[in-house]
């Protein structure tokens, strides 16, 4: 009897942990499958790729939530400038359960930055728009890497004032891109909460 109670309690605990994940996806009524443009640090990014909606995945797993959010880092190069990489995994967001068969698995927005780039420079990108002459986009398609041009608009970049440790930045904005004449990424919008402890600049 004791053993049965122990099993029951363990199952309940696992069930509770499994169901605790909640995502802040607020659909845009004008653009089906996409989130609204927000600046709250909701860790959500959506866009159309050839008119199909994509989102960064968030999955409930045992004992927590796997939140595939922004990976932001500086790529040091041998050239006169370095590269700032914003990348996140993507999956289809059209109601189909095709996580393992989605044509694209990850997107990266790349922009050139000075070698002396710091967090202060990142905050200075607030309100700035960068066109396709300077930025590039990379789509990861299983074993292929597809690259093209992108436009990025950092609508809001500021400290998360509700965080008492003052080590979180909210980055939100718009992007679009094209890879040749065949792949068009449109109506992209992102809203990420980034911990400055994890940055390499």
């Amino acid at each position, binding site marked *: 009897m004791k053993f049965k109670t122990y099993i029951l309690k363990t199952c309940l605990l696992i069930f509770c942990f499994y169901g605790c994940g909640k995502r802040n996806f*607020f659909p845009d009524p004008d653009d089906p499958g996409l989130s609204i443009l927000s600046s*709250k640090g909701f860790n959500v990014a959506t866009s159309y790729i050839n008119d199909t909606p994509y989102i960064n995945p968030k999955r409930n797993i045992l004992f927590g939530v796997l939140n595939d959010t922004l990976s932001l880092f500086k790529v040091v190069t041998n050239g006169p400038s370095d590269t700032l990489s914003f990348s996140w995994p993507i999956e289809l967001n059209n109601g189909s359960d095709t996580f393992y068969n989605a044509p694209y698995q990850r997107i990266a927005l790349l922009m050139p930055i000075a070698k002396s780039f710091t967090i202060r420079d990142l905050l200075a990108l607030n*309100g700035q728009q960068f066109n396709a002459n300077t930025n590039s986009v990379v789509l990861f398609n299983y074993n292929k890497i597809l690259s093209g041009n992108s436009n990025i608009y950092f609508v809001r970049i500021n400290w998360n004032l509700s965080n008492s440790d003052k080590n979180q930045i909210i980055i939100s904005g*718009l992007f679009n891109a094209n890879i040749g004449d065949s792949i068009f990424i449109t109506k992209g919008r992102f809203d990420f909460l980034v911990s400055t402890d994890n940055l390499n600049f």
Partner: protein
Amino acid sequence: MPIILFYHVPITLQWKPVAKKTSPVFLELNYNIPITVKGTSNAFTLNPGLPKEVTLEENIRAFVFTASIGFRIHLYTNKKNNSFYLNLLPVGICTQNFRVSYKDYNNEDYEMLNPDINLNKGGFVMGMSGVYNFHNRNQDMMIMLRVQPPPFQSRGDYPLSYNFIAPLQLTFGYNLYYNK
């Protein structure tokens, strides 16, 4: 979050189901006709041929309807037969319907940042009002100050710029009598 003040034209109807003058029970229907509240919101675009940021006029109209059961407590009557009552409204149902619109919003080219959306929710409420009745040979008149907290209901997780309304209402009206 800044507090948004909503203004309404209130209409209140009270009915005493028991005709006896000493009966304290009454039913109250309360409808607040909204006056549009104006605000601003920003929208952004990547289109190089357009201004990258525009400020749009946001209009919010909040319709509030409350149905309550109340108890009237007599506090005071003066020599002219004017009286003061305290109305307690311990149980009520309130619906609050917010309608949001943006003037000249080009949603093809622009994306609104943290847009508000329509909301229509209801919940239980309590309320209280003070009523002063002016006795007149031809027609009794009354003035009422009524307070009501927001409904006991979650607004949801959506990041709205407004909250549920806690109406503070000043009403001037007539007492009508009928005989069965």
